[in-house]
């Protein structure tokens, strides 16, 4: 970076031009998907969006800040239930733009939860932190299980997607509108987190990961940095929950059990802890693989090997390539001038 105008150009490219371009491209792509895919494939695509947000948000804590949260599904559950509750019981017949507020509300409540859970527990290190986050996630699930207002163990059904919009002869279907929202949130998450980890605040996250004691010696309040990372991650996990809720249209607390957190950990670890594009890549693969490769395989062999393969992959990766597929690199490092 030689002068400020060049740096400004790069920043505006990253924060406005590319994202808008991406939204337009995916919006056009969505019309095509609408035609050539069936409902099942469409649902899987929406799950991919939710999982990308979920995995990237966890990467902020586990990858960039070097902490180890294994209860991230709890925050997703909070976001999902808040958003679902607002859209079923509070607002009747929500319009297209109401869904954005639902997602933000879900994210904010999840972030508040992250603050409550994070403030005391982030003073702990390593494995203790892992266990506390696990406990916190489980507590959220048990509380939801005992909440009659959101259906308890029976689950919460009838969660709407945006109602279809008619523009003359041209009809925007609920799937397409839901897809647009999901893509919108994926892009927002990626841009915000990308800019965040490449900013001064991002450097403090990295410094805590690299050496907490040295960071402290440089005058960084490590607990507050960790809590900040945790709260931001919880916010986006809540957004992911909202996207998930309006895609699945039905929620039960069991969805957000420990295995959901493990899914996110697998994505972050395989993609590379500390690589946003790595998490995106892993989220796409880990979501698509079981649906389009392992499910036919399971039908063929009669046994469901999905989790066996994942857990084996986790172990083998830790032994042979602990940094994951991408390591801490991003995809653009491939073509960036050295």
């Amino acid at each position, binding site marked *: 970076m030689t002068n400020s105008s060049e740096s400004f150009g790069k920043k505006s490219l990253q924060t406005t031009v590319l994202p808008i371009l991406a939204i337009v491209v995916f919006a056009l792509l969505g019309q095509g998907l609408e035609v050539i895919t069936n409902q099942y494939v469409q649902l899987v695509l929406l799950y991919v969006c939710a999982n990308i947000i979920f995995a990237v948000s966890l990467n902020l804590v586990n990858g960039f800040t070097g902490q180890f949260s294994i209860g991230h599904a709890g925050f997703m559950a909070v976001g999902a239930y808040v958003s679902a509750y607002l859209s079923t019981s509070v607002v009747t017949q929500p319009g297209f733009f109401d869904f954005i507020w639902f997602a933000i509300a879900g994210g904010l409540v999840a972030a508040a939860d992250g603050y409550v859970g994070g403030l005391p527990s982030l003073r702990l290190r*390593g494995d203790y932190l892992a266990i*506390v986050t696990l*406990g916190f996630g489980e507590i959220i699930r048990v509380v939801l299980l005992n909440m009659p207002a959101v259906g308890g163990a029976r689950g919460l059904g009838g969660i709407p997607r945006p109602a279809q919009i008619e523009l003359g002869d041209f009809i925007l279907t609920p799937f397409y509108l839901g897809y647009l929202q999901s893509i919108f949130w994926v892009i927002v998450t990626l841009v915000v987190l990308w800019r965040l980890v490449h900013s001064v605040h991002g450097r403090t996250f990295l410094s805590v990961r690299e050496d907490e004691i040295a960071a402290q010696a440089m005058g960084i309040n490590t607990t507050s940095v960790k809590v900040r990372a945790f709260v931001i991650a919880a916010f986006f996990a809540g957004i992911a929950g909202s996207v998930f809720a309006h895609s699945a249209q039905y929620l039960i607390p069991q969805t957000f059990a420990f295995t959901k957190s493990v899914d996110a950990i697998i994505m972050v670890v395989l993609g590379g802890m500390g690589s946003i594009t790595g998490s995106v890549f892993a989220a796409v693969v880990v979501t698509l693989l079981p649906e389009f490769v392992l499910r036919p395989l399971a039908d063929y062999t009669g046994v*469901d090997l999905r989790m066996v393969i994942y857990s084996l992959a986790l172990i083998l990766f830790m032994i042979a390539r602990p940094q994951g597929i991408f390591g801490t690199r991003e995809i653009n490092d491939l073509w960036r001038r050295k």
Partner: protein
Amino acid sequence: MSDLTQEFIQHVINGVSLGSIYALIALGYTMVYGILQLINFAHSEVYMVGAFAAYYGARHLGLNNSPGITTLIILLVFAMVVCSVLGVTIERFAYRPLRKAPKLNILITAIGVSLLLQYSGQIIFGADPKVFPNVLDDSVLAMIGTVELRTFDIAILGVSLFFTAVLTWMIQYTKIGKAMRAVSTNHVVASLMGINVDRVISFTFIIGSSLAGVGAVLVGMKYPKIDPLMGTLIGLKAFVAAVLGGIGSLGGAVLGGVLMGLSEEMVVAYLSSTYRDAFAFGLLILILIFRPAGLLGKASQEKV
């Protein structure tokens, strides 16, 4: 004695009996943590495999319906052997290659091993629950007022006490116990003193895993429904018990286990059974915030 006191005493008996099972499993967590500073997530799955080992062992040996002390002992030994082989295998192939890797990587591996065993278990044993063989006749041994002392509770308490005593003796008075204590204090210095650290670690896994096998048979005896996911919750609770007592401390694991069993029984009896699992985690979070070293643990200062 009033009815309320008698009811209370009955709950205490049930709680201690449940707690001593937690204690046995918690000992496995605490020993491995003491030596490797690793939360062995796979421990709860070793326990699960122990239950299935006893189940298939009993079927194979034709002990399915011959309750008695001999059956109990045979099944205990069988489960212990299978569990220790599994424990050592896990250590050898999953943890040992990572001995010098960052702690986080080993933790992730442990989660991976745990998932692998859970889901392979579902494929091999089938996901539906199985009925554990009839190990002992459950009869009332003594009645004090309406308070019942049942065979199961006595057997569980007796077996747990026996193994805790053996373990304490082994750690305190044998050569290998001394080596274990040395390795847990400082494994570099211990290896300079001629201790084979890898062997001590393997031995720790043998002991911890066989205690999990004992716990599995006792749980199977009392709650005779076993399935491949049975380890998750009880494993977490035993871990909470280990942290409560002070992880790394053997006495702490026993104390934590009993406290955990008692408090859980009391929550179910006097508050609400639906919040039973949330309670364990709530307790854990409170301990970690106010006394991270646990009740009997020593607080250690992080050094540069």
